[in-house]
């Protein structure tokens, strides 16, 4: 049974006041808060088990290694990877995309090839491909979106050709909330021989992902948007592709034998994990995924739909509010502009009412350019949010309008 009071009490940070008002944390698309079990797992590691992994023969190192690899196993199960070898720890989704662009892209992309992305990508799924195109002479193609903030499928289909070598698509847009039809995108891309990278940074806390059912080549995400710590994320790739790719960074842990003439690289996944990893981060990530599993995506999805529907109804009835992003398939994000109040002024004013939202371009400047707005205000919801917090947001919006009336 879904018990909102129990869930809220799992997150110690939520029970505080900001400027004398109860905190309404509605900036979950930027980062989610962390449940006590994640905080405890990280503390426990440093209090009891801290040691370097894959090295020592002593007890602490054995324990640290077991916990670190245990987290990898949890993550592999969560995304239904074929094995733990397909799960590469990175600093986050951004580094995972850069890893693919640099390693796979460097080995496979040449002048005349095309990389196809969409107009709603986060900068992290634009710039690494631009850099790759500059290095190789390949061309970056961008599939357009419509006024609702949805990918225009016919235009995407037209841009997808035998020249397309990689398709990079966001699973769920952080700026608009749009959920893309990734299963059909992947199938179409494979039909022309292109590989597919799905940016799951925003989606993975809200939607169940099965990388085998999707047949996706690369799926990336960040722990901190899934109730886990910052500084850790994953690249989940098909083993056959990862094995064919050259290393991304050189260093310790990614080698088998080093001589000054030549080095031999480790097996997967260690080939891509040079240097001492973010051990406590991985452990916290594993615990965060167990937390998500303990609630379950059925309950999470149902609750988050209720919250979005409640907020959307309020938004539609709010005078002078224009929603940015009204896709039929969307989740958890209410992006908007208010007539006569700039998003930054809104952000400051609602903050004084205890309501935390994001104001800005959400690292998706092309989306702002498309909708001809310099910035938007964005409220984004998570499983621990309540209708009362959404009410607090709209009361604060009214106050902002009054100040500028």
């Amino acid at each position, binding site marked *: 049974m879904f018990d909102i009071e129990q869930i809220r009490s799992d997150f110690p940070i939520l029970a505080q006041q900001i*400027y004398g008002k109860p905190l309404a944390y509605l900036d979950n698309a930027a980062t989610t808060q962390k449940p006590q079990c994640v905080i405890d797992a990280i503390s426990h590691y440093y209090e009891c088990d801290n040691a370097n992994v894959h090295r020592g023969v002593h007890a602490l190192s054995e324990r640290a290694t077991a916990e670190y690899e245990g987290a990898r196993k949890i993550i592999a199960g969560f995304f239904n990877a074929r094995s733990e070898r397909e799960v590469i720890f990175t600093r986050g989704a951004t580094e995972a995309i850069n890893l693919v662009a640099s390693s796979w892209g460097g080995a496979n992309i040449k002048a005349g090839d095309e990389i196809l992305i969409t107009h709603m990508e986060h900068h992290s799924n634009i710039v690494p491909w631009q850099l790759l195109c500059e290095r190789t002479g390949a061309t970056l193609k961008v599939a357009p979106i419509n006024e609702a903030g949805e990918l225009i499928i016919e235009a995407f289909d037209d841009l997808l050709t035998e020249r397309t070598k990689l398709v990079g698509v966001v699973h769920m847009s952080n700026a608009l909330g749009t959920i893309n039809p990734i299963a059909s995108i992947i199938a179409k891309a494979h039909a022309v021989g292109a590989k597919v990278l799905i940016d799951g940074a925003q989606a993975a806390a809200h939607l169940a992902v099965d990388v085998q059912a999707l047949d996706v080549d690369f799926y990336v995400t960040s722990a901190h948007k899934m109730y886990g710590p910052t500084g850790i994320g994953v690249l989940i790739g098909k083993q056959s592709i990862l094995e064919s790719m050259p290393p991304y960074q050189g260093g310790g842990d990614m080698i088998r034998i080093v001589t000054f003439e030549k080095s031999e690289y480790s097996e997967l996944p260690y080939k891509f994990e040079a240097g001492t990893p973010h051990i406590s981060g991985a452990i916290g990530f594993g615990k965060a995924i167990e937390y998500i599993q303990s609630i379950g995506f059925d309950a999470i999805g149902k609750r988050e739909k209720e919250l979005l529907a409640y907020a959307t109804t309020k938004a539609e009835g709010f005078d002078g509010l224009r929603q940015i992003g009204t896709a039929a398939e969307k989740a958890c994000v209410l992006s908007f502009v208010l007539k006569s109040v700039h998003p*930054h002024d809104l952000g*400051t004013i609602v903050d004084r009412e205890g309501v935390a939202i994001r104001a800005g371009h959400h690292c998706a*400047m092309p989306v702002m350019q498309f909708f001809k707005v*310099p*910035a938007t205000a964005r409220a984004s919801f998570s499983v621990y949010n309540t209708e009362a917090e959404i009410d607090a947001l709209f009361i604060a919006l009214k106050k902002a309008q009054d*100040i*500028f009336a």
Partner: protein
Amino acid sequence: MFDLRDLYQQVIVDHNKSPRNFGKLEFFNHEADGYNPLCGDRLHVYLNVNDEGLIEDVSFEGEGCAISVASASLMTDTLKGRPVSEFQQKFEGFQHMVTADLDETPDEEALGKLAVLSGVREFPSRIKCASLCWHTMKSAIENSKEAAKTE
């Protein structure tokens, strides 16, 4: 604790709603672009400094939050008709005001109506909004062009 009205005083709301000296000057010999990548605020300033070193006319255009628009409006009002040699002192005075300790009372005599912006001290993430126009003006004045441009 500061009230929101300390930041969004009526003067600021008014200058945001009807900014003074808004638009492009017909004659100008200095201009510069200002951009705050964090929030997307964009600003362009124009000024016409005459042979006596007086700021004969000054204007700005662009888009931004209320603090940034009001600050640019107030800045142009303050500089218009003043010797360009006074700019550096005014720039420093403004910078000091928006970054000073909260218990320091702004020097209203020296700052004039610019003092209404002293409330941003309480809102660290908004200080840049208030100071963007001053930095833009500084670069306009320092990168002077030989001849006045006409459009």
